[in-house]
């Protein structure tokens, strides 16, 4: 190694292409083996890990769903008793909402946002590593408790007084409430990273109107997370205090308020739905142009629709509470605001339809998933408008009609786009393509299986079948349709299994993908598949919203970054003009250790409030190690 290469401030301008790649690969590498596994801060590795874990939880939650369908397939079935059934539907809902849907959407953001923005790593990469370990711990706490027959049994929204100290003895609900805390921490951490990455780390020239739509979606989602999560932090902490310390936040007799829980929970819980749905719309907006071979129709309208959905999501939580006896004005207001959400959602749908209409569709698997999304999500949206009206909601509240509605919007609106996204961006995770033939089969199975499973639930709900019942009597007229639903759910499960099989097989033996197998337009396709640890050898310069289509596969680049320490380019917020060279933190074990300390503190606090006091000491030690100054210059303007 020459003296020049040892120079800490060696710039990429001084090196030729091959040497530059070697130097960057050395600077940004993750050590091999276990050490690398626990210390890595590479956003791609963490995101893939996150996605795999989330799909593992989807698989587990799916098994629970199949157990419930088995139990409900005939009247008076004796497979599962009432107590276990209560645990199963609670764990199913909590797993799908908190351990699958939100984390997987954020994980795709962690994977794609830095690549789409043309930067080398996400902002606060150590926080990113910490977020994953906390998320994993939260999931394990819930599932270990369930396996030990002490899983929460009060539904995924844990209404008081049922979940309160009087009616939920034992530690079951405390475990649920602390699992929420774990996922809150994980989600908030990622949101902060994404907001900063989007605002400050865009490639030079990527003005606000050139940001890819998925990045816009992740950005809006992150802001929603930051504003919505504090409500549930507060609510679940007060619930634990009520249960463990004997405070009276939700005790009406002592001046508390039972309805307060519902307000706080849904003030988070309704935005939560859009935290899941908005990234999915972003995925569609980013994938669709590739498959219709033209830029998306109505970029500005789509961005404004996403921003307004983000804002509106905070104004309609009360529609979950129409049957609690609200004042008339409240009911009218929240009916109106709930129906108003159909406007920006409709704008998006029509923009996509126009994009397809004006383009030349290429019928590949992600596009088929998007079409499945259209059909399914629009149906779910229509029942959404129905339950937004108070009289109808009063009639179908807590029936299978609502179960059908939210599975249509969540599976149709989020899971189908997600599966499209996994298929589409699979090359950026593994360097290989997923099998097209198996993919088509899984689209067909999932689409038909889903609709045949969940459509009859609308009718069951209208016939009066309530949610969360573990069995029903012989003389109720629900038996036939429940059997049909249970049989069709097998097709749905097979579709998911086939998708998983396809993904696992393609990881090993899929067809090798080039840099840009789909002929797409955005920056993540301007680097290799999978991208190197440093993402881009030189930071691309952008002068269009569809850079690869308008500027060609080899983009102009910015140079001048150091190659001997991890450096990335910070740009201005509005116009993305280069501002500063910023050092990006290297690998570290401290996020992992801090996550373990935090886990011990949070699990301990289920049993005694003193765990918060004593447990904060190891957490503080972890954070001190994490933030220990490095003695290197932070940044250079």
């Amino acid at each position, binding site marked *: 190694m020459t003296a020049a290469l040892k120079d800490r401030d060696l710039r990429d301008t001084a090196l030729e292409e091959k040497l530059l790649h070697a130097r960057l690969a050395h600077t940004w590498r993750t050590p091999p083996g276990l050490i690398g596994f626990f210390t890595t801060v590479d956003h791609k590795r963490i995101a893939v890990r996150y996605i795999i874990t989330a799909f593992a939880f989807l698989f587990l939650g799916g098994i629970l769903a199949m157990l419930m369908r088995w139990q409900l397939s005939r009247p008076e079935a004796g497979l599962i008793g009432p107590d276990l059934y209560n645990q199963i539907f609670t764990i199913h809902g909590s797993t799908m909402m908190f351990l699958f849907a939100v984390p997987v959407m954020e994980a795709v953001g962690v994977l794609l946002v830095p690549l789409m923005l043309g930067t080398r790593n996400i902002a606060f990469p150590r926080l990113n590593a910490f977020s994953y370990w906390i998320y994993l711990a939260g999931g394990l706490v819930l599932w*270990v408790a369930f396996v030990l027959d*002490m899983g929460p049994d009060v539904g995924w929204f844990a209404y008081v007084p049922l979940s309160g100290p009087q009616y939920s003895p034992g530690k079951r609900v405390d475990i649920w409430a602390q699992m929420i805390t774990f996922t809150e921490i994980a989600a908030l951490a990622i949101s902060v990273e994404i907001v900063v990455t989007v605002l400050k780390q865009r490639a030079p020239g990527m003005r606000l109107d050139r940001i890819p739509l998925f990045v816009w979606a992740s950005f809006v989602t992150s802001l929603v997370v930051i504003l919505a999560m504090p409500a549930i932090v507060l609510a679940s902490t007060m619930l634990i205090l009520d249960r463990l310390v*004997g405070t009276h936040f939700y005790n009406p007799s002592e001046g508390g308020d039972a309805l307060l829980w519902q307000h706080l929970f849904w003030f988070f819980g309704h935005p939560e739905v859009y935290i899941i749905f908005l990234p999915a719309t972003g995925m569609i907006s980013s994938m669709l142009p590739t498959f219709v071979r033209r830029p998306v129709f109505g970029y500005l309208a789509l961005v404004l629709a996403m921003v307004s959905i983000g804002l509106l999501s905070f104004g309609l939580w009360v529609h979950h509470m129409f049957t609690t006896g609200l004042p008339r004005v409240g009911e009218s207001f929240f009916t109106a605001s709930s129906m108003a959400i159909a406007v920006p959602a409709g704008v998006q749908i029509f923009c996509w339809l126009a994009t397809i209409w004006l383009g030349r569709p290429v019928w590949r698997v992600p596009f088929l998933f998007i079409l499945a999304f259209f059909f399914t999500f629009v149906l779910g949206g229509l029942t959404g408008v129905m339950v937004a009206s108070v009289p109808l909601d009063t009639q179908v509240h807590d029936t299978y009609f609502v179960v059908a509605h939210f599975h249509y919007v969540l599976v149709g609106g989020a899971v189908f786009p997600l599966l499209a996204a996994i298929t589409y961006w699979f090359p950026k995770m593994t360097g290989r393509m997923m099998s097209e033939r198996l993919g088509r089969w899984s689209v067909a199975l999932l689409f038909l299986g889903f609709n045949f499973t969940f459509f009859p639930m609308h009718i069951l709900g209208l016939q009066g079948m309530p949610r969360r019942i573990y069995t029903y009597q012989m003389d109720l007229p629900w038996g036939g349709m429940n059997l049909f639903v249970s049989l069709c759910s097998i097709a749905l499960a097979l579709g998911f299994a086939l998708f998983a099989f396809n993904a696992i097989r393609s990881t090993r033996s899929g067809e090798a993908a080039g840099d840009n197998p789909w002929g797409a337009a955005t920056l993540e396709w301007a680097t290799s598949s999978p991208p190197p640890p440093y993402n881009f050898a030189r930071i691309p310069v952008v002068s269009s919203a569809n850079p690869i289509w308008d500027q060609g596969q080899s983009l102009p680049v910015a140079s001048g970054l150091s190659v001997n320490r991890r450096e990335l380019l910070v740009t201005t917020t509005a116009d993305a003009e280069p501002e500063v060279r910023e050092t990006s933190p290297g690998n570290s074990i401290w996020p992992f250790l801090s996550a373990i300390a935090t886990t011990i503190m949070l699990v301990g606090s289920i049993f005694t409030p003193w765990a918060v006091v004593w447990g904060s000491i190891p957490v503080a030690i972890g954070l001190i190690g994490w933030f220990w100054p490095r003695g290197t210059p932070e940044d250079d303007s």
Partner: protein
Amino acid sequence: MKPWHAAFLTLLLLAGCKREQRQYRLDPAIAESLDRVEVLPVGINGRPPRVITITGDPYRTNAYQLSQGKRLYAGFNCQGCHADGGGGTGPALMNGWWRYGPDAVSIFLSIRDGRPNGMPAFRDRMTPEQIWQLTGYIQSLGATRASGAAPSRNDAMQTRPAENRAPAMSRLPSPYEGGP
């Protein structure tokens, strides 16, 4: 990593094994043998049925059973005489003084067979399982140590610290301070 995981799991197992189990319908044979208390001739005390020891003493250690006891305490109007444990026309249940002794069997017998000076017999009104649930709860009333299994506060006006927030008494009164 491995030993740490194992330790964590063992801890959870210990915490979870008995305390959280819920059984809504008791096996009839067990339900019947719950009544087999071997009573001493004086009728005050005795030996608990074997089945309680065999099933792991659920009425004292299981959160669900204790909270069922708490519901029965309200449902059978124990408050009417004993208030929320502080006592009224009946004796207090949380000051450490027990006229017939603090052990489970004597409390069980007091409820089942009644006692002189006003305590009615609940033999015909409750099942033996319910009486054991109530017994367990009454034992937890005057707790001097916090227990994770004990029920927490009710959604009602509070007249005493929650059962899981020990101590209800700061200490056991000494015999010289006088009893009931």
